[in-house]
């Protein structure tokens, strides 16, 4: 399969890291929990910024009495103790989240852990990635410097190019027909509101996994946070000039984690841009279907042996076994039932069952035991 060399390379890399830090602290073994950690950091730092942020664009008054989004961000950065650090943490934690999500994605792809019974995880992951990118972009509008203004205008003209619904989306985006104070209120709402829908997306992402790994061990958390602190200190962020609705900013600094779509927009026709984005998303979603493999043969319960002990349901890593009330003819209260579309044919349930009551159809445990016995006697 095409991912085979990539898989071997990943395993080799992880083997090296194991030798260095021991498998207990290997960050690759918590690859899904890394972005989750940064999400908590973002929520907390975002809460602190939210306390001082003012979502307006006013600049009609005298310059030293101005109160708007830009001046509130300036106030946070330059007047509140550690404000610059908190702002930096919020900015770079977003970047770090994208990096760790990509790492997570590449690892599940390289090690072939994204298809079949994991399809819900993959598809929800694609949606989550798109959401994270969009939320990150709205964060760049909020600081309301000249880049924010340019990005807002680019978004509007790109939306204009969409037939039928484009105008509607633009009105929703600007919260009106032009950039006003209501626009900023909307940006803030999108930024924060969508951040919390991430939690809903994550629930779907996790729902088919038994005991999902949600937090890395403290050692890794320390490193993740320390890296943020160092980057914040060594690459301080600076706002651009305050946005001026009458100005026509033309160039902007690209944050490659979030703003690459705008970089595309600088040389693509809007129509082509939307097609490219849509095509990219569709390819990502279809990736699991490009690989042809034989279908999974789900585990099967032997009703007459099942005692209803629930061990298999507890241990199944994909929530594929449910315990239902046993038929009246049974001596026991419960009966295990496999949901075939969730089953990976891993056999963990076979290992959990002490009553030979659950089996992989192409690999009966009685056959294996017989084979082991004959080998042992040989």
């Amino acid at each position, binding site marked *: 399969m095409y991912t085979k060399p990539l898989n071997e390379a990943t395993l080799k890399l992880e083997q090296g890291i194991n030798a260095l830090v021991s498998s*207990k602290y290997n960050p690759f073994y918590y690859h899904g929990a890394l972005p989750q950690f940064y999400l908590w950091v973002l929520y907390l730092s975002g809460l602190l910024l939210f306390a001082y942020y003012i979502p307006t664009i006013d600049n009609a008054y005298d310059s030293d009495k101005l109160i708007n989004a830009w001046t509130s961000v300036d106030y946070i950065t330059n007047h509140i103790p550690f404000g610059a*650090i908190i702002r930096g943490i919020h900015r770079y934690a977003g970047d770090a989240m994208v990096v760790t999500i990509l790492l997570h994605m590449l690892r599940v792809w390289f090690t072939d852990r994204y298809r079949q019974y994991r399809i819900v995880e993959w598809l929800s992951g694609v949606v989550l990635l798109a959401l994270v990118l969009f939320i990150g972009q709205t964060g760049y509008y909020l600081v309301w410097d000249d880049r924010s203004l340019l990005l807002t205008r680019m978004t509007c003209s790109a939306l204009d190019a969409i037939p039928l619904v484009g105008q509607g989306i633009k009105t929703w985006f600007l919260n009106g027909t032009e950039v006003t104070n209501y626009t900023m209120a909307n940006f803030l709402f999108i930024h924060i509101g969508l951040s919390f829908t991430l939690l809903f997306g994550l629930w779907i992402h996790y729902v088919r996994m038994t005991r999902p790994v949600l937090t890395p061990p403290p050692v890794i958390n320390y*490193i993740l946070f320390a890296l943020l*602190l160092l980057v914040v200190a060594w690459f301080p962020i600076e706002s651009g000039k305050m946005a001026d609705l009458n100005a026509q900013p033309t160039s902007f600094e690209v944050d490659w984690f979030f703003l690459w779509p705008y970089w595309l927009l600088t040389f693509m026709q809007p129509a082509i841009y939307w097609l490219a984005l849509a095509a990219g998303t569709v390819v990502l979603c279809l990736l699991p279907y490009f690989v042809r493999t034989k279908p999974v043969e789900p585990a099967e319960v032997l009703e007459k042996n099942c005692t209803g002990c629930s061990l298999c349901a507890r241990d199944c890593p994909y929530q594929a076994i449910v315990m239902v009330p046993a038929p009246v003819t049974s001596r026991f209260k419960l009966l295990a039932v496999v949901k075939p579309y969730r089953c990976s044919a891993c056999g963990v349930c076979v290992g959990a069952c002490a009553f030979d009551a659950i089996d992989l159809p192409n690999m009966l445990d009685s056959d294996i035991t017989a084979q082991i016995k004959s080998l042992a006697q040989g």
Partner: protein
Amino acid sequence: MPDDKGPVAKIFCLLTVVFAAGCLLMALFMPWAELGLPATPPGPLQALAGLYGGGQGLIQAMVRAAQTDKNFPFYVYSSFLGLAMIAGAIALNFVGREETEKTVLPTKK
């Protein structure tokens, strides 16, 4: 600490702890100064203040940097906290790491 660590690892671990403590101390001097607390710290901290005084040149350079960028102290604080956390993580790694390549079953019944 698990007993299969060589002396080098032990020394390294110790150095890490000392370095982390140093970083934390440095980081604590910052709010001390920020809050305008006395330049000569009380009692047992005197000796440490002497140590601190040894780095006069460095301190002056930092003061100058702080005058040009008001956020400079915060960035220094942040770096030291970051370095201390990394040092702490390395130390914790040495204490908590587990050899998981082989599982031997305990023979006691």
